[in-house]
C-alpha cells in the first residue's frame, strides 16, 4: 500500500530534510509550496533519491481563499493522508515589525492565521479516516515572550495552543497531533544570523521529527536539550527577564 505524506511548505530547509528521511519506494509525497521553480528542484531531488511518487501543488499560504480548493485537490489525489507535515513560516526582524504594522500582521498571518485555516480544512478531511498524523512545526519562541522576537513568538504561541486543543479533539478520532518546537536551526530562515554551539543542522532536526512522528509523540523539543533550556527560561522571574537582552 502506498503511504501518502503531505508536506505544506515543502521548499523550507527543515521540510526538505524531513522529506529526504521519509521517502521510500512505497511513499507518495504531496508537496505544497508557493514557488514552483524551487519546488521543481525539490521534487526532482526526492524522485532521484528513490521516492515512489511525488506530486506538486502550488499555493501561497497567505491567500486564504485558495486554501479550500487546494486542500480538496490534495485529498482527492491522495485518498487517505497518512501524515500531514506542516513546516513553513516567516521571520521578519523584530525591529522592522515594531514600526511597520503591515509587517507585524503578516508575521501573525503567515505563522498563525494561515496555519489555522489549513489545519481546520485538513482535520475535517482526515477525521473521516480514523487514522493518521498531523505534525506541525511551531517554535521554542512561542514558550515565552522575549523582547527581541515576541511578534513571531506570539504567533507560534497561538499555534502551539491551537495544536494542543486540536490534539485533544482528534484523539478520539485516532489522529495524533504532534507539536514540534525546534530551537536554533541552521536553515535559510536563519542564514543571516551568527551561529554558535546551540545550533543544529536541518538533518539532525529532521531525524528527531521523523522519530517522533513514528512514535506518535505529542510535543517534542528538537534537539531535546531545548526542553531544559526552555524550562529554565520559563521560570526566570519577570524582574530579571526584562533586563535580559534576548
Amino acid at each position: 500500500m502506498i503511504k501518502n505524506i503531505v508536506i505544506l511548505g515543502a521548499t523550507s530547509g527543515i521540510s526538505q530534510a524531513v522529506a529526504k528521511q521519509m521517502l521510500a519506494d512505497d511513499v507518495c509525497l504531496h508537496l505544497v509550496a508557493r514557488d514552483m521553480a524551487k519546488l521543481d528542484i525539490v521534487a526532482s531531488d526526492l524522485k532521484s533519491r528513490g521516492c515512489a511518487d511525488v506530486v506538486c501543488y502550488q499555493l501561497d499560504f497567505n491567500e486564504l481563499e485558495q486554501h479550500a480548493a487546494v486542500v480538496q485537490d490534495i485529498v482527492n489525489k491522495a485518498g487517505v493522508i497518512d501524515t500531514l507535515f506542516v513546516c513553513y513560516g516567516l521571520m521578519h526582524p523584530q525591529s522592522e515589525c515594531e514600526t511597520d504594522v503591515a509587517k507585524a500582521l503578516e508575521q501573525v498571518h503567515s505563522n498563525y492565521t494561515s496555519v489555522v485555516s489549513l489545519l481546520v480544512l485538513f482535520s475535517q478531511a482526515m477525521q473521516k479516516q480514523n487514522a493518521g498524523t498531523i505534525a506541525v512545526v511551531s517554535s521554542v519562541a512561542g514558550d515565552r515572550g522575549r523582547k527581541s522576537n515576541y511578534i513571531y513568538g506570539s504567533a507560534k504561541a497561538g499555534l502551539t495552543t491551537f495544536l494542543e486543543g486540536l490534539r485533544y479533539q482528534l484523539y478520539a478520532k485516532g489522529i495524533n497531533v504532534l507539536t514540534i518546537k525546534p530551537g536554533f536551526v541552521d536553515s535559510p530562515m536563519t542564514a543571516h544570523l551568527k551561529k554558535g554551539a546551540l545550533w543544529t543542522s536541518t538533518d539532525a532536526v529532521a531525524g528527531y521529527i521523523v522519530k517522533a512522528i513514528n512514535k506518535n509523540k505529542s510535543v517534542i523539543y528538537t534537539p531535546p536539550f531545548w526542553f531544559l533550556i526552555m524550562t529554565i527560561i520559563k521560570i526566570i522571574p519577570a524582574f530579571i527577564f526584562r533586563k535580559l537582552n534576548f
Partner: protein
Amino acid sequence: MHFNFPSWGHYPKHQPKSAISYPWSNSKINFDDAPYLAYGMGRSYGDSCLNKNGVIIDSCQLNHILGFDSDTGIVRCESGVTFDDLLSVIVPKGWFLPVTPGTRFVTVAGALANDVHGKNHHRVGSFGNHVTAFELQRSTGQTLLCTPDNENKLFFNATIGGLGLTGFVTWVEFRLKRIVNSYVTKSTTTFSSVHEFFELDEEYLNSHEYSVAWIDTTARSSHLGRGLYFSGDHAKEHPVAYSAKKKNQKSLSLPVNFPNFTLNTLTVKAFNLLYLNTHKNQEGQALTHYAPFFYPLDNIKNWNRMYGKRGFFQHQCVVPLDNGKEVITEILQRVSAKGMASFLSVLKRFGNSPSVGMMSFPREGYTLALDFPNKGKRTLEFLNELDVLVRSANGAIYPAKDARMSVDTFAASFPHLDDFKKYIDPAFSSSFWRRVTRQQKL
C-alpha cells in the same frame, strides 16, 4: 551555511570578509562585490579554497540531485552535493562514482574544480573525463551551459581543474560506473624498498582497476621506500546485498586540536610501524566493503586536528615516467635523511589518459603525496627543496594540496596557464591565485 571556512590543512588561516549561501541553482545572485570564491567542503589542504578578505559563496544549500537515471547511470546534481550523499543514493541502485578521491566528504563541484583523481587513474583518467555537462554562472550575469563539444567547450576545459576561478558552477552532470555489489576484492602486498615498488607496480598496475601504495617514510638505506601495495577491483559475484554504509560502522571524532608535540618523529615512526605490521598480517586477498577501501580516514572525523593549531602541509607532486623513478627515490631519500618523516605517504602511477582540463594536475607519471606538520621555516625550506627536484624533471605540484609553492613552480607546473587566464571570471579570485600569480594582497 558553514559557520567558518577553513582549509583542511588549517594553514594558512585566511578569513573571508563575508560569506553568502548560493540559494537555489536556478536563481541568480548579484555579484556586486568582489572577489568571490566558491567553497564546497573545504577538503583542499592549502589556500585554493580560501579567499582572504573576499566573499565566500557557500554551496551547501545546493544539495539536490536533479536527475539520476538508474538505467544509464547518468547523474546530474547541484554543485554542493557531496560524494558521501551521492554514494548513499547510487550504490543501492548498482552504481559507483567513476573517480573518487581518498575522502567522500567532497562536493561534486570541488571535485570538478580540482579535476580530482583516484586509485583508478591508470584506467579511467580523472573526474573531468567523466563529466558530460555543467552550468557555469558568471559574474556578468551570463549562464553558460558547458559540454565537451558545444560552443562553450573552452569554458568546459578551463573550468575542469580551473580552481574555482572561472565562475560559480551550479550543477554538474557525469557518468557513473556499474557495480554488482558494494564490495571490493582487495589485495595487499608488502614491498621492502621503493625499487621493489616499481617492480610490483609494473606487474600489478594493468591487471587491477584500483592501485595505490602506502610508503613508510621513516625507513632508511636498503629499506628506503618500503611499504604496502594495495590493489583492488569491484567484486564480481553477488554474495551480499548493496549497502551504502558499512553496518555497525563506528566513527571517531577529534574534537580539539592535538597539542603540537603529539606528532613528533617518534609517534610517526610508531604509527608507520604499526600500520605496516597490521597490514602485513592481511597480506593476500580479501573481500572488503568499499568504504574502508576507498576512504580509510573518513572514519576519524577531523583527523587533521592531530597536527595541532599550526596546521600541516601536504606536498603532492607528479613526475613524468622518464626519470620518475630516480626523482621519487631521491625525494624519499631526502625525507628520510632529514628525519622529516611524513605521517601518511602515498605513491601511485598515473596512466596516460589525457586530462580534459587546461589546468588539470594529473598527467602520466608517478605521483607522491607526503604530509608534514608545520614547523615553520624549516618545513617551508625543505618543501622548496623538493619542488626543485620535481621541476628539474618537468613535474608538477598539485594546487589542491598546496599552501606554499612559488610563482615559478606554479607556472612551470601548468604549461597552459596563459590560455587559462582568458577564461577567469573577473570577479573571482582566491588566496591561492593571488599568491601564485603574485597579485596585490587583499
